[in-house]
């Protein structure tokens, strides 16, 4: 599941990216238009115009209510996101990155482009001159910034609130969509692992760069890549023994996690006395963290696997270790 907020400069192709992304993920775009049509019940055309035109109007209360349009907008979006469960959701504009900044699974994307690109896009879209497009952009940028500042008191243009900033000067809509999808998929795996860390008291190492400890691990990663099996390297540590004061005295960080198979693999190239200790740790992980799939790849297993791959690898259709 991915919750993706897209903030965009006018004329940067952000709307087109949101639509293409929604189509690829099989979901809808929650945009300002969607919000005005669905969040506030029946509203008269005059109110609709004012909500469209004026950020300030979001601060007014609904007829017969003490709550403002901004309050309802925030509540409705948060409710939608919380209820989305396994559904993908795309929030376009409306300061989604500010609104959902503390939502752990959300990815915040900003789409930008140079002024020249944006002017050309606007001029083409509305069939106007670039001078007229400059005026349109000027007004639209001001209004956009004002909306987020008025409703949330934040600056939408500050880069630190975004996870990914895409510049469409040289990137196509398709390239941007592919990049967002891939990032969302990996981010989702990471978030789920982090959540399980909170639940189980294990430690998260997912932000570290992959640095293999030995050639065996590197070779094993290559084998997984060969089979297009996604892996994370040492994503977490499982404490398995504590002293009387609750300090961790023994822990294990399995070498690989295969998210698709919900499986931890620990490689060992050590001699037997260390393997015995590892076996103990594995047993403790299974006892202390029920439902955790964890397996040891022994030195013998690994060598056998490599032997078979060497023998059956190459360009013919026998490239399988399973024989």
């Amino acid at each position, binding site marked *: 599941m991915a919750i993706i907020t897209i903030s965009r400069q006018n004329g940067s192709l952000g709307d087109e990216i949101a639509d293409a992304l929604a189509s690829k993920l099989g979901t809808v775009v929650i945009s300002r238009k969607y919000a005005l049509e669905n969040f506030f019940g029946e509203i008269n055309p005059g109110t609709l115009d004012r909500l469209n035109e004026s950020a300030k109007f979001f601060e007014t209360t609904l007829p017969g209510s003490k709550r403002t349009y901004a309050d309802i907008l925030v509540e409705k979006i948060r409710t939608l996101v919380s209820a989305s469960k396994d559904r993908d959701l795309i929030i376009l504009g409306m300061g989604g990155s500010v609104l959902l900044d503390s939502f752990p699974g959300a990815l915040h994307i900003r789409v930008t482009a140079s002024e020249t690109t944006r002017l050309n896009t606007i001029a083409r879209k509305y069939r106007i001159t670039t001078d007229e497009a400059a005026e349109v952009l000027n007004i639209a940028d001001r209004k956009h910034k004002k909306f987020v500042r008025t409703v949330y008191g934040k600056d939408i243009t500050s880069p630190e609130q975004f996870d990914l900033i895409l510049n469409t000067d040289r990137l196509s809509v398709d390239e941007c969509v592919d990049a967002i999808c891939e990032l969302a998929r990996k981010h989702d795996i990471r978030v789920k692992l982090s959540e399980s860390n909170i639940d189980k008291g294990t430690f998260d190492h997912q932000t570290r760069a992959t640095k293999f400890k030995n050639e065996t691990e590197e070779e094993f990663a290559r084998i997984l*890549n060969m*089979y297009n*099996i996604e892996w994370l390297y040492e994503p977490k540590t499982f404490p398995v023994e504590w002293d009387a004061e609750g300090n961790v005295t023994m822990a294990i960080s399995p070498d690989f996690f295969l998210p698709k198979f919900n499986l931890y693999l620990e490689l060992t190239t050590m001699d037997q006395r260390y393997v015995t200790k590892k076996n103990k740790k594995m047993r403790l992980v299974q006892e202390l963290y029920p439902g955790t799939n964890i397996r040891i790849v022994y030195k013998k297993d690994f060598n056998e696997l490599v032997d078979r791959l060497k023998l059956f690898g190459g*360009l013919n*259709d026998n490239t399988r*270790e*399973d024989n």
Partner: protein
Amino acid sequence: MSNLEETLKTERVVYSEETIKARVAELGKQITEDYAGKELVVIGVIKGSLYFLSDLTRAIDLPVKVDMIGFSNIPDTTSKTGIVRITKDIDIDITDKHVLVVEDVIRTGLTTAYIIQNLEMKKPADITLCSMLLNPDRLLMTIPVKYFGFEINDQWLAGYGLDHDEIGRNLPYIAQIPKRK
């Protein structure tokens, strides 16, 4: 000793023709019961499952659809090992259908995991596995092996679809062969 046995330097019969035939009949009966009233597509993995797929599907008394899938290692400029890719995809639409993947042997399960990942993208109702041989001690991947003929250990085998360098698939029984380097 036959020509084929001599070429393979077979050491001993591990599973005879009769034993295989009886076990395949049992598997067919079990699958027939489990999938009664369901739409089942049986997919054999090229080339090892050739004989097992042929015998197993004839032991299943259901209107199954049969297809085959093949894969290969192709060179890749960015890696030394190359990458595994599907070379013969299935032709039957498996969307919302029950799928039974038939393998000759599963050891670590890496290749099977690769095939399952690919088939899952076609959105079947479910995927289960039937392997003639299974080495549970070497199985690394968490894959849904529901049916298997026999458990094996680390021995090197040929026959009934299993080969060494493309030789030995047509041996009608499963034999142990010397480990090759």
